């Protein structure tokens, strides 16, 4: 929901044969190679069966990943470091944003943060 402007409203500049970087509000989804994945990833905790990339502040809204053979992964001792494994096709949905399509591949999930002297605070929409 927050961010730079590339297109007029819902920005789409295309990315040809290169894997796309996607943004949905305060979440950035960055394509990575399988070799870049850290060792020891496990399926991330689910919330009532849902794979939640990030939650909103008070609304209960959430960025939720769905798709055939799609898995949200994290490190057992660091729940904020998340990756997506998409076997065929997936999507990320949110109550206030258009859905983001995800072609097969691996992605790093980055939550937008804000600077706080002495600490970093994550943004929630």
């Amino acid at each position, binding site marked *: 929901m927050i961010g730079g402007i590339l297109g007029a409203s819902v920005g789409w*500049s*295309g990315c040809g044969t290169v894997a796309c970087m996607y943004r949905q509000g305060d979440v950035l989804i960055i394509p990575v190679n399988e070799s870049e994945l850290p060792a020891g990833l496990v399926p991330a905790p689910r919330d009532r069966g849902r794979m939640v990339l990030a939650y909103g502040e008070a609304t209960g809204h959430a960025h939720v990943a769905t798709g055939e053979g799609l898995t949200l992964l994290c490190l057992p001792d660091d729940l904020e470091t998340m990756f997506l494994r998409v076997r065929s096709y997936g999507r990320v949905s*949110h109550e206030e944003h258009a859905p983001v399509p995800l072609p097969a591949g691996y992605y790093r999930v980055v939550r937008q943060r*804000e*600077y706080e002297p002495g600490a970093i605070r994550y943004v929630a929409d």
Partner: protein
Amino acid sequence: MTDRSWLAVGLATGPADRSEAEEAVRTAYRRAGLTGPERFEWHGSPRAGAVAAARLAAGADGGQAGRSVRGDVRTRPWAAARAALASRLGPRGWAEHWTATGARTWQLLIDRLVTPIRTRLDADLAETADTIGMALLDAVQGQHDAAWLPAFEGVVELEGLAGVARTAGWWWPYERVAILTERPVALHRDNLGRLHHGDGPALSYPDGWSMHAWRGMPIPPDVVVRLPSLTAHEIRAETNAEMRRVMVEYFGYERYLRETGAKKVHEDEYGTLWRADIPGDEPLVMVQVLNSTPEPDGTRRTYFLRVPPDTRTAREAVAWTFGLIPEEYAPQLQT
């Protein structure tokens, strides 16, 4: 119970169910092979519980209470259950199981709640007897044991601990006496689960013991009272840097920028970078960005995000909020 319902247990406010809690304590003692307490003592907060436990540990009742049996009722059954599960699942299986069941509740209940409570209790009680510090170590965390209980669903040896978790706050088991405490009357957290409230205490217990906090940072009650009527001038005059940060955040970064005559530093297709100086502190540097998704009336909402003070361009600022350098930040689709 799911980890979500255990989280609700850990965050529950309102009176303890005293008879259920006492019955669960008896179960925990029985499971540990102990005869059970002869007497229950109830207090209104973890602080009051710690003070009472310290008095018992110091022999205030002539040694009637006996030794602490925390090891028998809490540590040993927990360690046994964990070892059994870890050996059955193997290291990777255990990591997966813990992540799916207890990792989230642990983060939200222990890291965000119990650790600040303990830090505050240590500070509160530092000037009193050393025995209170020891008494804090003897505490069993009652509802806050919901942090790890979801990983051990159905383990009968833990049913007493689980029963107390569902019905009461922190507790202290001794051979012949059990000290139990109430749950909070109020609990307020931010979206990250940190103690956070701008209108009264973020956490308060029925005996009046409370903690004021803003986004997890402890703040004095008199600062909380001043927050709603702050002016930009008062904020600039505040000498404590941490308090000033709380004040600016409550006041609103955007409003502070406006009322202190912030300078436009840079503008590009990613947004606008603003800077306001704060006397005696690092400057407030913020990037103003537009929402990609239009509102129903076609307009787009503006957002301000605080970024490090040495940021020079709007693109660098937005890239930083995602942990990237400007050249890396290039989303092809934004919704």
